């Protein structure tokens, strides 16, 4: 299974997956012109990964998400929730700058629907 390595732009986040280590890293703003097209490889990767492996950690440092990116993230979190219900070990660590409370509020919205480990970590 090929890993994904997408460099950040002003409107899209950095995305790195690590199949061997069982992690996904995302950092930056997300308002692509076509979010569904942009995120398709990641959604496919997470789906295939969860079919084959039982541990996954999402390390997120996302700031601004447009509406379609929010929808994609909810779909990914739903996949994680299903995997968790099926007994898999999934975790989200969403890091944010303590001075940017809006990011924490956004992460809280996502966390509401998740019963797996979802940590919102403020950093100096």
């Amino acid at each position, binding site marked *: 299974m090929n890993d994904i390595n997408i460099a950040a732009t002003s409107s899209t986040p950095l995305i790195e997956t690590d199949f061997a280590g069982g992690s996904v890293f995302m950092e930056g703003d997300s308002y692509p012109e076509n979010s569904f097209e942009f995120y398709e490889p990641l959604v496919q990767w997470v789906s295939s990964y969860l079919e084959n492996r039982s541990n996954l950690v999402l390390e997120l440092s996302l700031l*601004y998400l447009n*509406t379609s990116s*929010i929808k994609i993230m*909810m779909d990914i979190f739903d996949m994680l929730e299903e995997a968790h219900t099926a007994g898999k070990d999934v975790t989200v660590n969403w890091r944010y700058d303590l001075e940017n409370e809006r990011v924490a509020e956004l992460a809280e919205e*996502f966390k509401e629907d998740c019963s797996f480990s979802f940590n919102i970590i403020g950093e100096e």
Partner: protein
Amino acid sequence: MKVDVKALEQRVQAALENSSNQENPLYEVLNDLWQYNQTQWQRAEQVIKMSDAYQDMMLRRERSLAARFDKHLRQLEKMARISDRYQHAMREANQELERASTIDQLTDLPNRRSMMRLLSREVEQGHDDLKVAMVDIDYFKRINDQYGHLAGDEVLVMISDIMLSTLGDRGTLARWGGEEFIILFNDEPQANVIHCLNELVKAVRSSEIDIFDGAVIRTSISVGLTQFFPGDTVDSLIGRVDQVMYQAKNSGRGCICTDLSENTAVYA
């Protein structure tokens, strides 16, 4: 009359199985009818099975659609909430930007951009009873050099407050830049405007400005006054009021010069 179908079928079956009936001319017809009846029953059973399967499929499909609908509804509600929050934050940021672009951060007065906008509007409308005053704090550089820029900022804030409270609603005061201010008077008779500017000059001159290290600063303002003439532009108006303000500087400071009359007058 209610027919007991099962009993009737048993009677037919028994009649057909009885070998003594095989020679009966009705035997063959009854046998064909019996076979036809059996085929119809089998078809009915098939239709019932298909119908049950179809109903089962529809039920499963409905459950699946309901689950998807609930999921999408939940996602939609969440997206709307997040979107509302973003819009609220954006509105606040816009208001802050709007304020930052039109208000002077130090004195809280309208800034140069705001005054330019106002002046352009008035000049475009050709407002013929528009008077413009330029105010400059005297020896401001000396205050900055002697007491430091923080003290200079304090003097700007204090003099802005004094001028604003003295002016009231007779005119619009803005910080033009550095230690310069512009006052716009609309539909105020010349005598009232000069009286008002005299009050400003006297109020500033009589004020003692305490700065943070215990020192007290006294200063004055020089004021130039002009009015809008047909054909004026914002630049020509500002250029003229700047000139008369410098006449006030050259006339000893702490006074008002105007070009409203034939001769430049000095007041205060």
